[in-house]
């Protein structure tokens, strides 16, 4: 079946503008994650949604970052007043949580954000 999809694949914006990044998880997956991948820095956790529970926002780097998940499916990551240090690849992953916690997180191809 279809994997995780993200749009746009590339986004170039000017400093100070707001951007929205979209993630379509695998159908039926209850868990959705956002990570940020900066050059040479690995993947950094941003936020996690599980079903109807309150999201885990512990990884969001500042209050300029927010995310929502509508209807338990599609998610949008919003970055307000973008800064140059926000330039990175933003990755979304989804999973079907299993008992014991060894769910596999399936990643989308990412959105490459460049802030000029």
């Amino acid at each position: 079946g279809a994997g995780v999809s993200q749009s746009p694949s590339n986004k170039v914006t000017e400093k100070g503008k707001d951007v929205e990044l979209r993630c379509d998880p695998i159908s039926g997956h209850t868990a959705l994650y956002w990570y940020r991948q900066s050059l040479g820095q690995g993947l950094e956790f941003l936020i996690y949604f599980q079903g109807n529970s309150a999201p885990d926002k512990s990884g969001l780097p500042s209050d300029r970052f927010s995310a929502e998940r509508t209807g338990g499916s599609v998610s949008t990551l919003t970055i307000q007043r973008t800064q140059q240090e926000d330039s990175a690849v933003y990755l979304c992953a989804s999973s079907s949580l299993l008992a014991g916690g060894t769910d596999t997180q399936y990643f989308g191809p990412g959105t490459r954000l460049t802030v000029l």
Partner: protein
Amino acid sequence: QQQVKQSPQSLIVQKGGIPIINCAYENTAFDYFPWYQQFPGKGPALLIAIRPDVSEKKEGRFTISFNKSAKQFSLHIMDSQPGDSATYFCAARSIRNSGYALNFGKGTSLLVTP
């Protein structure tokens, strides 16, 4: 701070060689250790994963060795092929302390030469 330390940053081996990538962690609450493989322009994909109750897990040419007392784990790629050239990330997670989010190492760029 980086909860999982990965080395080396880059690695070049000849076809048929056995690259080894190492990771270390401090949080003894971690209870799940996956390795992800990422090709350019793609998202990471799960390669193999281990729980701390076993010392080794093998899937095809990929083996994880896990040393709980040393808080270290490593990935070995047997009979490496040029198609294995990619970036490899180790990760760790503690459901008890941090939910299901993964803590990733910084990655190892592997090049397998023909």
